[in-house]
């Protein structure tokens, strides 16, 4: 009997303490980020879909289609092609295709790149009704950006 009463009293006390906790939280400010009204800053190392890096000297992609990234990729989602032009020491990338829907954003390609010619973008809020958009042509993307 005593034990039961004790349990009831302690139990009620625990309930009241719990209610106090939630009530205190009730009056604290919200922690929500107002996402579509405000853009978020991704951290420096944020891993979004990769993009080509522009060489400030030439204004073109640094990449010379050495294929290291394509070989490093576990999912095989990168296809790179390049041509060697007359009078140039290295190849120039003509097509850099990324099937982002297969990518696991592991960063193997970026790490494998000897010249830091690719980097992660900050594209964090990508959603689309069109599946074909995920087949990215990074070279064209770079050209569009420069325009």
């Amino acid at each position, binding site marked *: 009997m005593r034990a039961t009463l004790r349990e009831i009293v302690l139990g009620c006390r625990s309930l009241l*303490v*719990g209610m106090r906790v939630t009530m205190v939280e009730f009056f604290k400010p919200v*922690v929500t980020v107002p996402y579509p009204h405000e853009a978020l800053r991704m951290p420096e190392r944020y891993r979004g879909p990769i993009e080509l890096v522009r060489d400030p000297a030439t204004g073109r992609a640094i990449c010379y289609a050495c294929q290291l990234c394509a070989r490093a990729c576990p999912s095989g989602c990168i296809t790179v092609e390049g041509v060697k032009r007359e009078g140039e020491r290295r190849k120039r990338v003509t097509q850099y295709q990324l099937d982002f829907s297969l990518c696991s954003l592991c960063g193997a390609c970026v790490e494998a790149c000897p010249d830091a010619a690719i980097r992660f973008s900050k594209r964090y809020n990508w959603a689309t009704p069109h599946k074909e958009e995920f087949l990215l042509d990074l070279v064209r993307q770079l050209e569009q950006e420069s325009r």
Partner: protein
Amino acid sequence: MTPPPATVQAPGSGETFLLNLGPQHPATHGVLRLKLTMDGEYITRAEPVCGYVHRMHEKMGENRKYAQFLPNTSRIDYLSAMHYTHAFVGAVERALGLAVPPRAEYIRVITSELNRISSHLVWFGAFLLDLGGFTPLLYAFDDREQILDLLEAITGSRLTYCYYRFGGVCHDIDNAFLEGTRAFVARMRPRLRLYHELVTDNIILRNRLIGIGPIPLELCRRYGATGPVIRGSGAAYDVRKTEPYSVYPQFDFDVPVYPEGDSMARYRVRMDEIEQSLRIVEQALERLPSGPVRAEGVPRVLKLPAGEFCCAVEAARGRFAVRIVSDRREIPWRVKLRTPSFSNLSLFEEASRGMMLPDAIALLGSLDLVIPDIDR
């Protein structure tokens, strides 16, 4: 296979009936299916059916180079990705005899323990959700976001970090991370008190957990259950202590053990582990050495010597071990992943016999399952 809502068949001949919990059911956290034979609300037999998220990790291990398998390790148990990567790189480092620079090991410990806390926080929230409390879930997720912010800043990802490399870690940590981690440790202690006030001491929760779903130590041993499950049954089995790896021996921390074996014991073990992880993080922050974060001379293309190499870590759910069988090629001959949830769930059928459905849900929740960790 009938996912809910399952329609009732004609009245069965027996007194029991079959209830299919899952593969889509709120309490099975993902896609576990429980074939329950019920007598009213009592369970006479609960047979887990797995494989609904089987993702061929072991097969992929035989198809990929060592470095290429790294992203997979973050996705087996996505809630404790750091630990799983740790086990894999640990096995490779053992095979190659790589010496990991101390700073890298410290960073590994810090990130691992942060990851453990975030994993336990998800468990805490999801468990409370199973028990019908929604608010603690959001409080826990709020705290977890702090950890994710920290980890995202250094790894670039919120969940599937893929941060450790053979012989070190991917990037060094910066001052902002150290400050943030200190701030987090300072924030987390009062939050734990809040959890205890709101949840642990709550009479409803105590009544739902104390004495519910007892798992004797012997049962744990025979089923190979590890992690908080076996520690909640009275054995101080923690891979960080019994098979020390990384620099864990340098830290002073306790292994929380509760002998009762009921759901409350497992609950308490995890809550205490958050506390212990905070302690480890604090110590690691204090003594963080300087230096490189990646070992010198790690070949670009790894080839392991022939043989079998095993490395076990204490993941958030228990003992996770990687066994690599190498035949000197760039691609392993076999990668075996020993996952804790697998063994922890396998005892459910025996432990849940004769329980009531809501109690069984509490037991299931207290096992802290991640289904892809079972299915691999």
